[in-house]
């Protein structure tokens, strides 16, 4: 009789643990379903794909994007003062075209005088860079004339005539034929 009792209690305890396990399983799957519903992995994939395809299609390298951004900032900040850190430049897809969308927070507009000054500054820096390039190699202006080989001697179309290819004609501007023009 006692043995039987034991069997029954064992069975009951087994049953209880089974019920608990089933309940907890159902609860956990419900929680999981709720989780997957709140987190929609498809739209994540779609958005990421759209973005990556836009960059693929635009054929711009990240470095080029960055450079474009810097140059845009320079131009815009001549006219308005902008928040450089909050600037956001990205590619977006309209139905069949790609749009470059920039979100540029403007802190304040510049006064007329500032605008003028910045324009002058910009012009100055351009001028300086030109000067710098010209001052680096002062005497090596490219000879504008096209050289021709006539009877085994090279002739360029400049005022001088180059009789001997090795020595050059002695004019100042140098060309491929080696002539140098002197005034």
């Amino acid at each position, binding site marked *: 009789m006692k043995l039987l009792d034991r069997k029954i209690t064992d069975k009951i305890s087994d049953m209880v643990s089974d019920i608990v396990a089933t309940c907890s399983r159902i609860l956990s799957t419900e929680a999981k379903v709720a989780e997957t519903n709140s987190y*929609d992995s*498809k739209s994540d994939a*779609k958005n990421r794909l*759209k973005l990556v395809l836009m960059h*693929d299609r635009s054929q711009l390298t990240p470095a080029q994007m960055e450079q474009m951004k810097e140059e845009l900032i320079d131009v815009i900040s001549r006219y308005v003062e902008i928040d450089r850190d909050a600037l956001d430049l990205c590619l977006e897809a309209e139905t069949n075209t790609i749009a470059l969308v920039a979100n540029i927070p403007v802190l304040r507009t510049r006064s007329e005088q500032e605008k003028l000054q910045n324009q002058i500054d910009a012009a100055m820096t351009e001028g300086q860079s030109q000067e710098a390039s010209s001052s680096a190699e002062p005497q090596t202006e490219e000879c504008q004339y096209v050289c021709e080989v006539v009877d085994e001697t090279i002739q360029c179309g400049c005022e001088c005539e180059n009789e001997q290819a090795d020595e050059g004609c002695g004019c100042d501007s140098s060309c491929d034929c080696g002539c140098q023009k002197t005034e």
Partner: protein
Amino acid sequence: MSGRVIVITSGKGGVGKTTSTANIGTALAKHGAKVVMLDTDIGLRNLDLLMGLENRIVYTLVDYLEGKCKLHQALVKDKKIPTLALLAAAQTCDKTAVTAEQMKDVCNALKEDFDFVLVDSPAGIEQGFQNAIAGANEAIIITTPEMSAVRDADRIIGLLEAKEEIINYKLVLNRIRPKMIQSNDMLSVSDVTDILSIKLLGVIPEDENIIVSTNKGEPIVNMENTKAGNAYMNIARRILGDDIPIPDFETPPPTFVDRIKNLFLATAAKA
């Protein structure tokens, strides 16, 4: 006779190019067309395995190009369908054994005798791919609803757009799982076609029978009543010009209760 040369390509590997070639080819032949399938994946051929013809190959594409055999000698006839043939790729050479110009000539020669020349392209966008598209007038792009496969398909579409000879290209979306689409955990058919902005030729649901069919060396269209087999048969009919609607996998199928409701509503309407 001048047949249609259709290249089947994907960019990414493992999305089902070869399976699709075998099944679309077989399905077209079952509908009465004369079809030749051309494996251009030189060095990594597999189309013969899926067709169960691996023991019958004597000459390959490369043998023909090297002048070791005539074109008709290199064609392997299908076990069941007499109007279906396979031209296998060489397994021992690499992709540089063939040039785009040669491929063009082979396709032109084949389309004289067949209604359809299906070219199974290798993965990637290098020489092998360029060879595969060289002689084609149409393209079928295979992709799956995975990000990497869709991205690669976009790249392929870009390359195909740049090729003037290809006048028509359509998408086959492979291995979709309707349940995952319904629970918003998989890119849907319309998501993929929107992103790629391309016309859809067909949708193949994920089907375990594909593995069985590959094991047997028997295309799935030869098996009775399978999801993927039916989808491939429909694709073949669309290629032949029939107007067959593509099933919508985005809305869940009607439940038992819905069906009873509909039945009641229908009878009520009649009454």
